[in-house]
């Protein structure tokens, strides 16, 4: 083939069926909430590959299984309502089906999953799939639920209408799965279906006065109305189904709101409190490993690298797993039973005012425990703009890592006086204010971004409220496993790398001086940190932090807390010559408090820590992005390193301004 020909014809090398290598490729297509994931699990079990399609952040999920000696690769396409692409997800579906997706073999056949309880709308996608030019098998799911509601579908008649085989499958019980796999083995040799005559004539008589796409949609439904009339038998009409009754309770103004608040509180307290013992267990395990390594390795750089760099870094990754697993367990259960869409429905009005949508609620709520699972939960937001906006403001929610910082500074520097009533103490008010600052700033940032950077046509909130059903355990567990694995594999390695770099910056250039006793060791440790690149950076930025009321050691501690905010307590301890401080230890904390209270500016007896300074530190930590793991996860979830940079920049700028205003106002008011 000449180069001119190669240019003229698109590259079809990826489009030819990959029969030579011996495996068939089958694409699983369907509307969201049709039981597609359940069918995937029933056919292929655990996916062999989960990743992103090249160049887009759309999840690619592939499974493999063998039937009658034939190896079959199953591609689970993102759930879609139409093959007229309106989003990157839908574009991926179209590209894969047409063999235009780089690195993905064009499927040998398409399995279209259709929900029997909701046949009319599902037939819309089926009608488009018939014209893709690949052999089609239609799988009717949820037939058992349909039957319970008095809906019966004549599969033979439907098959005749569509001109392709129709198999009824109840995936959890594996009914019909055998028949389907038998068909899959043969399907690659079939001819693609010819468009049903009635559909063709409906499309041919589409209203020419309307825009082509709209006219086509109306014509397809004209055909669908006829098909549904001929193949669906409704035995009972007008009977309120159980699903409808549950629905009217859970979307009720009062009861629905109460159930919603209770559910959210339960989820939120679980990621807070249920995860805590697991996280303690992991910490203890990591500590044990670190102690072991500490005893085994000879004193020196290697030991410091292994203990303070690698082990601490790995520990810092694994520690997030309980929260991620628990949150995704709840999200998968809520998604499986249909409540996730209802939650978005209930909260939409509240969030739409600031440029977000109802689907942002659970990710943002989770971020109060930890931004990392929260940002990952933003995967449930299909709309890209809403998803990105949610990810960008999620780190502003005060996470549990900020709490020790607030508690220490509130306890040590905020006078314990009553505010108005005797039971309301000032430290508690300040603590609440820190949480409020995060929420208010997030609302303002979302509002401003949605009307500037992310301005565009209104984003539709056209969302199906699926029928109530029991979540499938296999699908729920797979979702949890997937979230944990993707966090460990994608973000984990990078977080460890970042931890090691920060360890190096905090340890070099080294201070080679042996310590005689513990007190001298503490002084030396402080000196070593002050001498390191990080410490010098603190010195270097002193002019920047001075307007905040901070001395250079505070600047140092803020810079050194980049790996994670809670590290700042330990860093403060080291930098003020205390040795390592465990914030959990009462004695250590009070020692730290005493040390901080005594700290003075270099060469004077002016105290560093006053009320305005403590407040300015708290406001800074409420708004800053001093959490390397969060930034790494933002990079991985958005598929671009622009967004972590944007997040870090805008949050640091806001944190500085907030701290500046707090300190200056506090000083002016004579606090």
């Amino acid at each position, binding site marked *: 083939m000449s180069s001119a020909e190669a240019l003229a014809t698109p590259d079809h090398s990826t489009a030819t069926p990959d029969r030579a290598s011996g495996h068939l490729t089958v694409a699983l297509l369907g509307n969201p909430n049709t039981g597609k994931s359940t069918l995937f699990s029933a056919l292929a079990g655990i996916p062999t590959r989960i990743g992103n399609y090249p160049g887009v952040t759309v999840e690619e999920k592939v499974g493999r299984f063998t039937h009658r000696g034939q190896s079959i690769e199953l591609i689970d396409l993102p759930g879609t*309502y*139409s093959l*007229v692409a*309106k989003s990157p997800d839908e574009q991926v579906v179209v590209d894969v089906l047409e063999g235009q997706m780089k690195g993905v073999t064009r499927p040998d056949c398409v399995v279209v999953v259709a929900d029997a*309880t*909701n*046949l*009319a*709308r599902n037939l*819309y996608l089926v009608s488009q799939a018939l014209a893709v030019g690949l052999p089609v098998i239609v799988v009717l799911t949820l037939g058992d639920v349909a039957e319970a509601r008095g*809906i019966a579908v004549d599969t033979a008649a439907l098959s005749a209408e569509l001109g392709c085989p129709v198999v009824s499958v109840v995936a959890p019980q594996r009914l019909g799965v055998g028949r389907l796999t038998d068909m899959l083995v043969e399907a690659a040799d079939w001819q693609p279906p010819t468009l049903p005559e009635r559909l063709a004539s409906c499309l041919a008589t589409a209203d020419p006065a*309307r*825009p082509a*796409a*709209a006219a086509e*949609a*109306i014509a397809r*439904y*004209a055909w669908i109305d006829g098909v549904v009339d001929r193949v669906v038998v409704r035995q009972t009409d007008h009977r309120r189904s159980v699903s409808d009754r549950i*629905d*009217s309770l859970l*979307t*009720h*103004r009062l009861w*629905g*709101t109460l159930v919603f608040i209770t559910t959210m509180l339960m989820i939120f307290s679980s990621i807070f409190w249920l995860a805590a013992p697991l996280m303690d267990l992991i910490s203890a395990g990591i500590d044990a490993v670190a102690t072991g390594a500490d005893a085994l390795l000879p004193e020196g750089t290697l030991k410091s690298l292994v203990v303070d760099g690698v082990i601490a870094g790995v520990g810092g990754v694994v520690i997030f797993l309980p929260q991620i697993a628990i949150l995704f367990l709840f999200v998968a259960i809520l998604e499986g039973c249909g409540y996730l*869409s209802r939650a978005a*429905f*209930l*909260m*939409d*009005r*509240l969030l*739409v005012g600031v440029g977000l949508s*109802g689907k942002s609620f659970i990710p943002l709520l989770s971020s109060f425990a930890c931004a990392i699972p929260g940002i990952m939960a933003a995967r449930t937001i299909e709309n890209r703009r809403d998803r990105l906006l949610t990810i960008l403001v999620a780190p502003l929610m005060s996470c549990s890592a900020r709490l020790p910082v607030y508690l220490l500074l509130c306890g040590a520097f905020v006078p314990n006086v009553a505010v108005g009533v005797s039971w309301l103490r000032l430290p508690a008010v300040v603590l609440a204010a820190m949480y409020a600052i995060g929420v208010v700033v997030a609302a303002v940032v979302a509002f401003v971004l949605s009307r500037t950077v992310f301005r565009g*046509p*209104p984003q*539709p*909130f*056209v*969302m*199906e*409220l*699926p*029928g109530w059903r029991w979540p499938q355990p296999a699908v729920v567990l797979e979702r949890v496993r997937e979230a944990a694995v993707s966090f460990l594999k994608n973000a984990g390695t990078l977080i460890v790398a970042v931890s090691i770099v920060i360890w190096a910056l905090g340890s070099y250039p080294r201070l080679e001086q042996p310590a005689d006793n513990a007190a001298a060791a503490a002084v030396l440790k402080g000196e070593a940190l002050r001498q390191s690149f990080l410490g010098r950076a603190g010195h270097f930025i002193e002019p920047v932090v001075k307007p905040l009321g901070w001395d250079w050691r505070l600047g140092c501690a803020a810079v050194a807390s980049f790996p994670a905010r809670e590290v700042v307590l330990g860093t403060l301890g080291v930098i003020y010559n205390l040795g390592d401080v465990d914030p959990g230890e009462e004695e250590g904390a009070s020692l730290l408090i005493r040390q901080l209270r005594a700290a003075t500016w270099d060469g004077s007896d002016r105290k560093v820590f006053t009320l305005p300074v403590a407040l300015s530190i708290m406001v800074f930590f409420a708004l800053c992005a001093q959490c390397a793991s969060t930034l790494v996860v933002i990079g991985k979830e958005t598929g671009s390193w622009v967004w972590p940079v944007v997040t870090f920049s805008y949050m640091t700028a806001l944190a500085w301004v907030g701290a500046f205003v707090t300190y200056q106002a506090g000083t002016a008011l004579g606090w």
Partner: protein
Amino acid sequence: MRSLAKMPVGLTAQVADVAGDDTTSLRLLEMGLTPGVAVTVVGTAPLGDPLELELRGYRLSIRRSEADRVAIHP
């Protein structure tokens, strides 16, 4: 012609037309809100928006701003 956004909760009406030719209007049509179809306003979220609709045997949620594009027969 009345708009679906102003229809009281609990009533059923027939869709007359969907205005606009952008992706939002196309999505409404693709979700089955085509001329002639019967649609019921099942309820609204606690703060009055979005709406919960029933059509073609399933439940759909759309915002009032989107429902405003849908004209119904009186």
